């Protein structure tokens, strides 16, 4: 799980909150699933910029997941404006699942 960020502290807080956003089919949170690519914080302009992916392009649950990410960041950082980019470059693959995520899927 290699998330690009310009603020490790803020990123840790954001990821802790985003661990509550689940992929409803897989039952695993999107952080351990490896859907978060980048989280940047503009302290002066009070903006967050988040780059995420989906397990498959045109995923039927895509809109729900992106809505949930935006909503979670809004609640966690109420004073920040959230910008989001959905990317498929690079496309998601199984290697992006964290060790914790693999352990979870092994047990279920």
């Amino acid at each position, binding site marked *: 799980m290699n998330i690009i960020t310009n603020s490790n502290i803020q990123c840790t807080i954001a990821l802790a909150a985003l661990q509550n*956003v689940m992929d*409803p*089919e*897989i*039952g695993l949170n999107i952080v351990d699933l490896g859907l978060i690519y980048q989280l*940047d914080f*503009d302290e002066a*302009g009070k*903006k*967050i*910029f988040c780059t995420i992916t*989906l*397990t*498959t*392009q*045109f*995923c*039927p*649950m*895509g*809109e*729900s*997941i*992106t*809505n*949930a*990410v*935006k*909503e*979670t960041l809004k*609640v966690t950082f109420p004073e920040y*404006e*959230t*910008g*989001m*980019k*959905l*990317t498929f470059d690079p496309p998601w693959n*199984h290697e992006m*699942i964290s060790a914790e995520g*693999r352990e979870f*899927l*092994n*047990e*279920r």
Partner: protein
Amino acid sequence: MFAATGNTGTTKTTSCKVVLPFYGYAAVAFLVANILLLLSATGLIKHYFHPHTLAITHIMALGWGTMMILGASHQLVPVLIEGKLYSNKLAYTSFILAAAGIPLLAYGFYVFDMGWPAKWGGRLLIVAIIAYLINLAVSMVKSRNENVHAVFIFTAVAWLLATATVGLMLVYNFTYLLLPGNSLDYLPLHAHIGIVGWFLLLIIGVGSRLIPMFLISKYNNTQQLWWIYGLINGGLLAFIFIFLYTDTGWLLLFPLLAVAAAILLFVNFCYLSYRQRIRKKVDEQMEVSLLSVLMMLLPVIFLIIIIALLIMSPKENSSLLITYGFIIFFGWITAIILGMTFKTLPFIVWNKVYHHLAGKGKTPNPKDLFSNTVFKWMSVFYIAGFVLFILGLLLHYAIVLQLAAALLVLTALLYNWNVIKLLLHKPASL
């Protein structure tokens, strides 16, 4: 760097309003077909060319199998081609025309009136398929992202159009002599273009994408899928040629072996996907879907026996032929739909009801929107009914056939119960 716009670039999927009517229609058709099967069960021992058998077969093939596949594929095509569905209006047009055409056609067969009901039913169906084919073709051209799965689907729909066209010609042939032989002679041609060209090609094309996806499998083998595609289409074209231009029965073994090889390759594809899955637990819906993959082999075994018997003696074995058809429509096709309905529909409904609430509070899991207990009972009744019906057909036991048909009606009722529960789902107060 911080382009903090609200635009997520979200890849919009097909509207659920387009997809859900197909699911509802297919569920009702499945129930109707099973009730008719119960009413006609004992008659099936006689001959496969019976008006009631034709009606049930077409309700199963079109009302159940085709409508469900069309519905699911309107949702899945964007995932498969990685592009938007071109037109919702064309999707509605397909639904309305097919929904009107199928009962007309089935009624025509049931009362064996090859006049206006069967003819209009066939015409409406053909226009519905053309509308879907256009929608699919334009979606693929616009996405510019062709892949093996999309090619499988497009070719399958083209074969569906060929099946329906031949079918309508057979209907016309009852009243105007369009063909050199009688309609009954061409029935194997019509049936196998539909079964192999439409159902087999489409189910493998979609299944090869969905099965590894739902298993979260690392396995992927595009080259093997292209081999499967070539074997199925090559086998089918060879079958058409042999059927129309030769009288040598044993030649039919060549296309049969090509299609059997394709099915074995697909079974191997699914097995390797299963072995290389990251998610260890396989839910009941996937178990039923994987069972249906194995069930693909049953018709092949039956067909080998039927062709072997035909080579030895030209007299048709009616109960083997009916069992062969039953295994395809009530076995393989039904099993994959029973499993995949509850892997796709709960997510479509969940998205419709809860997507705007995502991240704002706790929402139920899509799997909680239907009853898994009802699903398990449905699976038990289905497997028991399916096995008993085959025994009844092969051993000519009328009472076993009726008992098995009653179990299949119960299967359809439980299936409908869960589908209605899903379709009528309202959000719980959060």
